């Protein structure tokens, strides 16, 4: 009991975390130039999707009562990539993540994590995952140091010095009680706890929820920087499009428990377009075109279609019609079928 409370040895000299690498949301589809590049260029390069999947999910299902929270989700997350898991509130993001962590069991489907395929993630697999939850339910009476000591007992790869270093870099006082930390500090503490065992995979469930814009950006910068430096596979969920656009190499869009899209951001931008049809013009999307959204008014009919690049190159719009590229936000809204409701 005493040694839990006993003062730790002096933390190792603090080595700064490389400043983050983020790409600002593209002003247009053509130009997505990085505006805040602090780290060396070779670090910032997004991971090419050539490595085998570290995390592969097939047909994951989970109901709560009669409500299907997750309804046949398929995912592929490759080694070293940052995967943004995008969805509106209640889309099934947290349930999917809780299944990935083995906190709740999947009713159907398989999870292949780090080469081991199971229905439910094992304790051995969990030891190689770092996790930051949406809300932090730490023991309020613990100090950051005692919390680190407690959590460290569960990870054979726990690096006490790294934990102290992370706390110092993140400016979280080690001797402060959790109850005395702000929301942002708690999130940082959670990140330090998740990173200290050098996990192969980092999973974050809306980690910036509740943080102010500055803290949110700072937090995501840290995550990206860590992922790039250590080539750590990072899977984070969010409903903030700009956050995902800035940080993720690939995205998965989940809606009503089903995956609506999975691929690179560029692919999303290139394959999803808006077609405006003039009134009185007959138009039916051809084979290979997936209609994500369709709206009609007296002025025009608007289709948001998804099709392979080859199909778009051969696509000839009807006379008086136009084809437009979409921002990620527009593509996301079209994907999840959200409609603007006038009050």
């Amino acid at each position, binding site marked *: *009991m005493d*040694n*839990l*409370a006993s003062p730790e040895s002096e933390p190792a000299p603090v080595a700064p975390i490389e400043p983050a690498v983020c790409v600002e949301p593209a002003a247009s589809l053509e130009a997505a130039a990085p505006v805040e590049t602090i780290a060396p260029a070779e670090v910032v390069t997004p991971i090419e999707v050539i490595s085998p999947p570290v995390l592969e999910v097939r047909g994951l299902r989970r109901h*709560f009562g009669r409500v299907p929270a997750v309804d046949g989700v398929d995912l592929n997350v490759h080694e070293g990539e940052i995967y943004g898991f995008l969805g509106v509130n209640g889309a099934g993001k947290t349930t999917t993540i809780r299944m990935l*962590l083995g*906190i*709740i*069991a999947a009713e159907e489907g398989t999870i292949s994590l780090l080469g081991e395929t199971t229905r439910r993630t094992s*304790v*051995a697999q*969990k*030891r190689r995952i770092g*996790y930051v*939850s949406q*809300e*932090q*339910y*730490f*023991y*309020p*009476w613990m100090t950051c140091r*005692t919390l680190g000591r*407690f*959590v460290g*007992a*569960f*990870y054979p790869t726990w690096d006490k010095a790294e934990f102290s270093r992370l706390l110092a870099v993140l400016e979280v006082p080690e001797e402060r009680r959790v109850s005395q930390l702000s929301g942002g500090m708690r999130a940082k503490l959670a990140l330090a706890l998740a990173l200290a065992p050098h996990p192969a995979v980092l999973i974050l469930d809306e980690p910036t929820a509740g943080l102010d814009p500055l803290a949110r950006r700072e937090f995501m910068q840290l995550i990206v920087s860590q992922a790039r430096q250590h080539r750590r596979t990072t899977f984070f969920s969010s409903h903030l499009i700009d956050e995902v656009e800035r940080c993720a190499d690939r995205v998965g869009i989940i809606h009503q428990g089903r995956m609506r899209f999975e691929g690179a951001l560029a692919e999303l931008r290139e394959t999803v377009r808006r077609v405006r049809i003039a009134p009185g013009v007959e138009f039916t999307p051809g084979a290979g075109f997936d209609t994500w959204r369709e709206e009609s008014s007296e002025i025009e009919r608007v289709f948001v279609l998804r099709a392979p690049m080859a199909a778009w190159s051969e696509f000839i719009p009807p006379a008086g019609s136009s084809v437009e590229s979409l921002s990620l936000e527009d593509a996301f809204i079209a994907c999840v079928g959200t409609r603007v409701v006038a009050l």
Partner: protein
Amino acid sequence: MIRGLLEKELRQHGFTFAFLGVLLLGGLVLIGANEMLRRAGGGGFLAVQVLLMLFAPLACLVLGQILIATEFRQKTQLFLEALPLPRWRMLAVKFALGLTSVLGATALALALAWWKSRHAEAMTPRFALVLALKSAGWVWFLFTLCFAHAFLGRYRIMFGVLVLFGIIYAGQSGVEIAAFGPFALVDQRFAFERLILPERALAITAGLGFALAGLGFALGLVRDATVAALLAEKMSSREKVFMTMLVLVGLIVGTVQYDRIKAVAPVQIPGTVETQRGVARVAASAAVDAPSRAETAALEAATRRTADQLGELAEFLRCRSFPPVYIVHRRDLESRERIDGGLKPTQGVMVRVNLTTKKFDDPALQEWMLRHALIIHTGLLAARERNAWVLDGFTWWWAHSQHGKVNALDETALTASRSAMPADFSERSLRRWYSTRKKMGEKKARQFAGIGLAVLTERKGAESVRDFLSAMLGVHEPADTRGWWHDMINPAPARLRAATGWTEADLVREWRAALAEPANPQP
């Protein structure tokens, strides 16, 4: 991993553990040093039994709350679940820590008692085995009960109250709880039984404990602990109201069902003289080996007089049944001494008196009988404070109206009550009758209340008053929640209004008017 969890629990709840430890040691010292317990025999093991009955339930309850309920209430189990730790192991550590703590405390208590008694008693291995198994069984039952109970989240207090109520009610209803499973392990033989192992009780306790532990683990693990997390959510106001109603209805229904299946054994008194008048039955017996002729005659006379009075009373109040009354003659009692036999309400009324003393006060006995029989008959409701003025008044009125045959409102009684009437006499005085009675004095208060009934008789007629008294004192009510419920939905003012058309305010107004000073007092 386990060490980390244990350290966490001990550090988190260190103060509570220390408090329980101090309580245990303090209790041991105090009880062990108690001269009365030493005189009662059983050495220090009687002290251990007291500890097992008082300390162990408290410790188990507290441990269940801090180890399980607090974790789920603060949602910190979500933090533990995210760690590479099987959920069952998290629960198992908590279970093992709690159980070990209570068992350790029990072992310490037994060891201290053993050491204390080593020179006074023959300490055999068999005796040690019997004591250890019985203590461990009892603690096992208590802890598993509290462990499962802690998972009930927001329903745990309600469930605890129900269990407690059920045990108390069952005990009062004559169920031999002490003979059942875990309770049999800590019965009155605990400190004295040296040879016989209560194998059946131990087996039941073990099975019950396993079932409760299984229930606890099931609640904590089923559907990935979402059930336990859901139960730990706070109760909404609407749910609170609903659950309260559910508990009340459950208690009433349970009580009714229980009373239906359970019959109370009738009282058997040897050498009984019995008399029946209508629904009233009076039995008398002498608590002596060979009653004298005078004693037998006194018994017969007493039963006859009492039966006559109670029979007439039951008829007046239109009682369909009446509790049996038992008179036990004891030579050793003083003339004014009356001892309540302490029967259960369903068994009737028993009084122990000396019928053959020269100064034997029969009217006082008759009044005592009347009061107690009516209290028992009404399921104790007649003695409820807001109804008690009717009972007090009736005992006076019944005697002074010659059992309802004449007007009791004479000037002597009025004059006596006039001075006794409180200045602030109102409906509130009736509702708080015991306070009013305390201010006035018991005898005066009875006369005062009797005057109220007499006023009612004069103004509203004898039949109306009889209806009112019949509704208040003639209706048999069970002495449980059903009676309480009936009294709540149909209180005394409602019965007064139904029978006489008067509200309490009307009655008080006329009552005061009758007791007002005469306009032209005679010189």
